[in-house]
């Protein structure tokens, strides 16, 4: 269907553009805003791909919580812009060349191996629903799920310890 293609390309353009915006913006705040746009676009892709729960999580966690945290830190430090010059000037052209090679390679991979990918078929209505994901999380992936919770706790404690001031000790 044409509308699919239109939406896809439209969103793809937004995603890539915002990505490039991130890459090029001098100001960290702009970079962050670009990234939010990017995340939102990707979230819509998730919706299309029958992953409503993930999409919402993407908006809430990434575009919401994480990016707010970024912005918060940027403003807290007042480090939107960087002065000085780069010590690794030679790296930039090299990186661009390598990036292009990577894209070419990836595209080649999919051209060569596209036969291995199954054609898309319709899925049932509850595919990717929060219920389905929850069921999977609390049965097959129970242990990893618990481990993740410990990891988050550890990260939280780690963040607190790292940002504590020296003189607050003892």
């Amino acid at each position, binding site marked *: 269907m044409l509308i699919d293609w239109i939406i896809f390309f439209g969103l793809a353009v937004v995603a890539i553009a915002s990505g490039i915006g991130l890459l090029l913006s001098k100001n960290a705040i702009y970079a962050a805003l670009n990234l939010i746009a990017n995340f939102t676009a990707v979230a819509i892709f998730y919706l299309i791909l029958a992953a409503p729960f993930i999409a919402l999580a993407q908006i809430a966690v990434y575009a919401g919580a994480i990016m707010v945290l970024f912005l918060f830190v940027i403003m807290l430090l007042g480090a939107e812009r960087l002065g000085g010059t780069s010590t690794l000037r030679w790296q930039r052209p090299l*990186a661009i060349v*390598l990036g292009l*090679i*990577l894209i070419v390679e990836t595209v080649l991979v999919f051209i060569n191996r596209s036969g291995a990918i199954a054609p898309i078929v319709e899925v049932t209505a509850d595919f990717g629903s929060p219920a389905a994901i929850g069921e999977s999380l609390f049965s097959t992936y129970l242990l990893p799920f618990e481990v993740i919770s410990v990891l988050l706790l550890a990260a939280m404690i780690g963040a607190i310890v790292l940002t504590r001031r020296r003189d607050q000790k003892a």
Partner: protein
Amino acid sequence: MFFEEAVSSGPQFFNLVPWIVFFPVIGLLFNIFFGGRILERSRAGEKIVGGVASLAAGLSFLVSVLLAISLNGHPEGMVVPLADWINIGELNIRWAFQVDTLSVTMMLVVSGVGTLIHIYAIGYMHEDVRHNGDPGRFRRFFVFMNLFIAAMMILVSGDNYMMLFVGWEGVGLCSYLLIGFWYEKGKDGIGNALAAKKAMVTNRIGDFGFLLAAFTIFWTFGTFKFHAIFEKAPEVAVANPGALLFITICLLIGVTGKSAQLPLYVWLPDAMAGPTPVSALIHAATMVTAGVYLVARSAEIYVLVPTAQFWVTLVGSVTALFAATIAVGQFDIKKVLAYSTISQLGFMVAAVGMGAFVAGMFHLVTHAFFKALLFLSSGSVIQGLERGHHHVEHDPKLKKQLKGHAHDFDPQDMRNMGGLRERMKITYWVYLIGAIALAGIPPLAGFWSKDEILADASKEFSWAYTLLTLAAIFTAFYMTRQILMVFFGKARTPAAEHAEESPLVVTAPLMILAVLSFFGGLINLPFDGFHQFAHWLEHTLGEYAHPGEFILVVALLSTGLALVSLALGWWLYNPRRYEEFWAIPAARRPDDPLRSYIGPIYEALKNKYWVDELYWAVFLNPYIDLSRFLADVIDWRFWHDWFHDRVIMGGYNLLTRLLAIRIDLGGIDAAANGLAVLTQRVAERLRQVQTGYVRNYALSIFVGVVIILGYLLLR
């Protein structure tokens, strides 16, 4: 008809028997938990604490009497099981009480004499704890005494060898605790503790024999129960005589330990370090007779093994004479009695060895009376002397007379006594009764029991008869010597001069015991119709409890010899002669009149034939040396320091050094060094790669990704 009558012919209290143990245990628990507070709070505290302990022993006696009454109607007795103890496979040891005439006899003696001694101790310990400067220990004494009664009751009432052994060890423990009661006193402050240890260890050697006997009993008979064993014994005697011989000889080792026979008697004289009531109860009247009880109890095994009987008789009679001779050379009032005890125990052991079980048990009973009496009276004498000494020390006028030797005054040395007859009248009279009973002068108790042993010996064991008669002669002699030195003549020290008689609580038990010592023989006169004790024991010992005969020749001879010996004693130690002897200046005076006549022999007697020294030289010192040698040289210097630290560790060090210097440094190291240098140089270059910039590292990862992906594509 007749049977029914027998069953209903009297009250039955057999099921009360556990209380003979429980009462003393309750008493000691009471004193452990409340005694201390009572002593602190109440003026009459000592009377309460001692009273409770005496009451506990007394109730135990009451139960024993009830049991005896029951036995009158039901002479076959009863086994009263209480609890299981150890059960493994066929091994089944239980705590059960054997109530029969033999055990009840022992119960009566133990609790009866025990109660009297408890009462006596209330008065005695009152002074003793003050004299030794620790009144708080009053309670501990009665706790231990009650514990002893309980253990002794377990010993005599068990229905199997293991319960007997439990009591056997229990009384040993009490003996240890009570000998070492004043553990900070004695020679060099440690003498009493050493005496206690000696008693325990020597007894352990005896217990070793007992244990081996127990093992053999179990693996031969499959049980420890007396009745089951005795039933099977005749079969085993045919099938496996070696086992029975081994059992009986090993039990004899146990007997020599507990009943202070040769060669393990050495602990008993030292045991006099304990307070005098202890010496009376444990080391004269009851505990030391446990060995005699053991042989009597095992009568049905012993009669099957003549060899063992021979050895028991030999040990007993030799000990009787041996100890009696040593008693002649002692100056300590309690030591004399101690050796006398050993000697009298020898009589009993010899008797039960000969198969004269009734005579042995009879002597056990009478001996319990008169020897307890003698010890308690000696305690009265000692405290009388201490009171005198105290009096002198606190009277400035008299104190001057004491001069230098005030501190090392020994209230037990008979040479410090003399003339106490006047100052301690009751003590004198009861002591005299005890001494005459011991010397075997008719019609006192000692005469009848001793005579029965001699009469039995004269029939088959003439050599034993000879030894025992000689021992009896010495007995009369040393008792005469003691009486004369203690009570007659003039006081030889100010302390003796001011000695005071003991209070009623001390003298009352003495008088009761004196009566018993006087009339105790009545329970088993050797005339037809008077053999009550023999008939009593017949219910337990059966055919082996033959009533004693009265052999006029034997009786006349022993009495005559005793009188001769008494006269000899009088001749040597009569007051006039002894005062003359005492008047000789100390430097030239021999320590005893007897020395002038038998010189070196007397030295040997006085030094107890140097047996202690011999044991030290032959067993103890070598063992100490051996253990030091093992510990220092073998275990530490050789095995620990040399072998492990030097040989193994040093050897390993040497090996590593060899490897390190020769092989490693010479060969491998050179190569390795070269390699190291190379590595270092390469590293010098390579480290420049480590720029420390995150982006650099990221770049290299990225390059890697691109390359790997490219490889996958081109593959």
